[in-house]
């Protein structure tokens, strides 16, 4: 029997043990790498799904804004219509005020004419002629 055999068996065993250790270490590293990749995979999928979700929200947001815009347009048109009718109303009021002022002037003119009439000689003579009749009327009453 070869005297070296036990030694070489020991060597072989030690070499296998160190190889095993090496493999275990590499396996651990690989497992760590797999986990890193799995984490990266999770993040990429989340990013993709999140981006898709955001993208699918955009048409809804756009539609919402479009609706809001249409609603604002409608409100603006209503407001313009309202302003128009207000302006027309104000114009009518101004016209009425002008008409009133005119009538007031006519009224004032008529009053002046009446005052002039009341202080005229004809009016005084007429009142003097009518005096007895007024007295009789009062007595009768």
């Amino acid at each position, binding site marked *: 029997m070869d005297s070296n055999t036990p030694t070489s068996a020991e060597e072989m065993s030690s070499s296998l043990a160190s190889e095993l250790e090496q493999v275990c270490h590499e396996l651990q590293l690989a497992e760590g790498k797999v986990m890193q990749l*799995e*984490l990266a995979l999770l*993040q990429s*999928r*989340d990013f993709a*799904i*999140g981006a898709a*979700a955001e993208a699918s929200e955009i048409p809804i947001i756009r539609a919402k804004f479009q609706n809001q815009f249409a609603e604002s347009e409608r409100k603006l048109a209503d407001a313009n219509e309202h302003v128009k009718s207000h302006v027309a109303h104000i114009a009518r009021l101004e016209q009425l005020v002008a008409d009133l002022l005119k009538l007031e002037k006519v009224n004032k003119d008529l009053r002046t004419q009446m005052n002039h009439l009341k202080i005229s000689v004809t009016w005084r003579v007429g009142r003097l002629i009518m005096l007895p009749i007024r007295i009789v009327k009062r007595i009768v009453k």
Partner: protein
Amino acid sequence: MQPLFSIITPVYNPPHDAFEKCIESVYAQEFTNWQWCLVDDKSSDPYVVARIKELQVLDSRVVVYFRSENGGIIKASNDALSLATGEFVVLLDNDDELHPDALSDVADQIKQNPLVDYIYTDEDKISVSGEHYDEFKKPKWSPERLLAHNYCSHLSVIRRQLVNAVGRFRRGFEGSQDYDLILRVVEKTSRIIHIPKVLYHWRSVPGSVSIAAGEKPYAFVSAVKAISEYLSRKNVDAVVEEVAPYSLIRVKRTLKETPKISIIIPTCGTKKTIFGIETCLVLNAVESIERKTTYANYEIIVVADAKTPTEIIADLKRASPSHLKVIDYKKKFNFSDKCNLGVVNSDAPFFVLLNDDTEIISNDWLETMLSYLQEPDVAMVGPMLLLEDGRIQSAGHSHTPHPHNFYNGRSSAELGELGILKVARECTGVTGACAMIRRNAYFEVGGLSNNFPLSFNDVDLSFKFLDRGYRIIWTPFARLFHFETASRPNISTPEEIELITNRWGNKIYNDDYCRIQ
């Protein structure tokens, strides 16, 4: 082309006023392309018989059949179905009322979705004095909830061909014959639409199921039978139990397998006072898992910040020597990233995201949550979370009117609107404080987004699942304490708010599963 609706009404001695209101409501329909299939089940009241005859003479749309003997609601309903020639059948009880828009709104939906097979609407009740109450704002199509009670009920409009194909109403399901029919219909189609508007008024008269389920115990027995048969047809091995005393149902699915479950707990080793004692949160959580959990095949992955004290890690290892794995987190705090790191360190097909400020209450919490995940389209399941004082911390998420924990701060003894707190149901999301998740689905949607380091990460994840067609289930049958924000403050950054709005802005304020506030 307008559909023809066949209104199916079995009649048996209804109160005169209620019957007249029912007739009025049919004639008040805006939509006029209907036929009314009235079957008198040998009423002894001459007024009722005379009134039906009168309707038959006055209107050719009214089709009538007088049974020669009283045969019960199922026979009478099936006779009414035999008279029907419309494309859709509309189920109307002889003492209830339709909203004037009922048929026109349903017709609009059919116009928009011509292939639809089944439409159900919201409903309310009318008291004897005519007052409307108990408006039931139903969720959108919610198959898990349908196993707890017949939430679809009224108004139900079903394609006639389908009703005939499934064998119409069945004897032996008296009191829940419509529930049994709906279960058989939804088994054959996924083209189901919910109209979120009250289009049916259910009259509460003594003896009516609308007053209290307890008024008709036979109806509950029939309901249990209908569900058991439904599950059996679908090859689902489950126990059907009553959620006493509410006459609600719990379907307890048997676990086919016991796969490994990873419980992922991000932590930095915070200590807080709980139940009057200063407690290390993560240690308390892990100890409660070890103490309570009956499910054997699990591991605990603690993702610990670099600042976590080493003695806490040592305590954890002592508390859970055979289940624990500790992962160091060396980056700047990001809740999502921490959870994702935990997930990639797990090889289990299902995992639980669990906050460190939690404590297990139900021993079978893992079995219960896992049972729902046996359905392949369920991605996430959340339990009932309670605050330290026993009030509700979260009964799932609700987005009405904005994202929040449903029933937060309310008593856990409450029944909730129409039993919502006592039944398992689909929801828009569950809190990331405790959620069991299917690993494949998690990877499919990219897990928790690192763009949400503090808040909304669970809301975002839920939306991603829903967007991919998955269901999310909330169950009251698994309970935990959640000492909310004990480990970190509940704050969100402006960037998170902007991002969640950009991603899900249209959906975030519009919760079709939970329309009550």
